[in-house]
């Protein structure tokens, strides 16, 4: 289990993950907030291939989640906002307008 090391300062921000409400502090990344809440599976590459945050620096693209209806957001690079709706990605979602998926 991930846990806070020190007494957490104010956590005034509430985000929604699936059916769960999660509290977070200013400046927290979505990945840190979810991990602290005990969530490890952020997406499923296939039904048998769960993934979660791996590099935490925007390199590996394994922590992709859906944020406010937009798929393929990097949870480790996104700062929480009050009322944010975060959802697990159940399969790789082909984001059509994306030009960055390789050459």
């Amino acid at each position, binding site marked *: *289990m*991930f846990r806070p090391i*020190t007494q957490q300062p104010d956590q005034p921000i509430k985000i929604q993950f699936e059916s769960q409400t999660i509290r977070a502090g200013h400046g927290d990344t979505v990945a840190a907030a979810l991990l602290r809440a005990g969530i490890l599976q952020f997406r499923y590459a*296939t039904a048998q291939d769960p993934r979660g945050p791996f*590099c935490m620096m925007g390199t590996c*693209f394994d922590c992709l989640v859906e944020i406010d209806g937009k798929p393929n957001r990097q949870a480790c690079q996104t700062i929480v906002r009050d009322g944010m709706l975060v959802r697990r990605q159940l399969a790789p979602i082909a984001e059509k307008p994306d030009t960055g998926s390789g050459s």
Partner: protein
Amino acid sequence: MTTQQYQVAVIGAGPAGLRAAITAAKAGLTTLLIDDQPAIGGQIYRGLVQNKAAAPAYLGNSYFAGIRLLETFSQFDGVYWSQSTVWQITSDHQIAITRDGRAELVDAEHIIIATGAIERPMPVDGWTLPGVMTVGGAQTLLKQAAVGAEHAVFVGTGPLLYLTAAQYIRAGLPVRAVLDTVGPKAWRAAATHAAMALMQPTMLAKGLSWLATIRRHTQYVAGVKALHISGDDAATAISYNTATGSRHTIDTEHVFLHQGVIPNINLTMATGLDHVWDRVNHCWRPVIDKTGRSSNPAIYIAGDGGGIAGGAAAELSGAVAADAIIRRVKPVGSSPLMVRLGQRLLRWQRGAARPFLDRLYHPDAAFRLPSSNDTIVCRCESVTKRDITAALGDAVTGPNQLKAFCRAGMGRCQGRSCGLIVQEMIANDRQQTMAETGYYRVRPPVKPVTLAELASLDGPWPG
């Protein structure tokens, strides 16, 4: 829309980029600093801005030493863009950036790329399971969010592994075990090196103190082999062989992997700069001169992105690169003494201290390659060792052809996680060198860009 113009654009706000931007702006050059993180500091000083006040002791002195640089930056009078992602540098030195959901183009006379390092991939069986992270990732959580895992197992080698395990212990997080793929052998080898004794005594002392902390507080096993992480929906255990061959299993929900860092070359490669295969450090690095100038005379590389030498050397190289540009823009005689000394020190760190660093960072071949057929090599496209072996049977000749055969390297990370693994598998199969085998052809955009972001650009797609 008029394109913004700068004399110097610096990409990356770690020690190299910060020092470069500060130096250029102080000399009166119009300077833009672009960084993809919410705050300055790069990976090494991640979270330092917010940790400064409370200064939790478990993070250690060398982390807080970065405060000096951060405070100097408070006088930076250039332009600083945070949370801004560079996805292309064009042939006429336009930089394409995404920021606040919009794409922007910036004209820069000179560019300093200071995008640092990434962790060397370590394709252990089960490395894609949730609960498995890089040690760098675990450390980022610790620095940026004061979050850590209990009863984690640290696996691999290198200073960052020992440092982070020691930070965990000092933070009061029980560490289940440290499984060292090399062992203290590497430290002893480094310690016997002459350059080491002259040049890096504090580094050695630090390393030994981290190891002492680890040995005092957790199970430390050196020379482990045949690693396997098991679990269904998340990691539940790691198995390993000891040096003497006995098999052991440790139950754990958290495995942190690390075997050194390599230059982050995606932007420099996509920009078409010359690169060379570094046999000793087993990585690609851009070709640069002593000032950091790349094969494109308007583009400099500072910091670990030009070759791994650590935070102090990175800061120095930022000053040296900025000084070289200042001298080209305003020829005002020779460089200040500090910069000349810096250049010399830098050459020494990259030259004389190299053997020491190389011994310390050296990754073992057994952990650079996947062992089991089911191990995922390309994390983005879930391409296994079996898939790649099959493609190799189809007479694939190089990494780019392999992409087309099995999609390895086609995903969002653009080969950052699998590039070296795939390259080495091909090299071994073809019995050719890594240099002969070559790397993926990396093309812009180096980070995904959406059409909506592109649509916000007034002009045409940058070319």
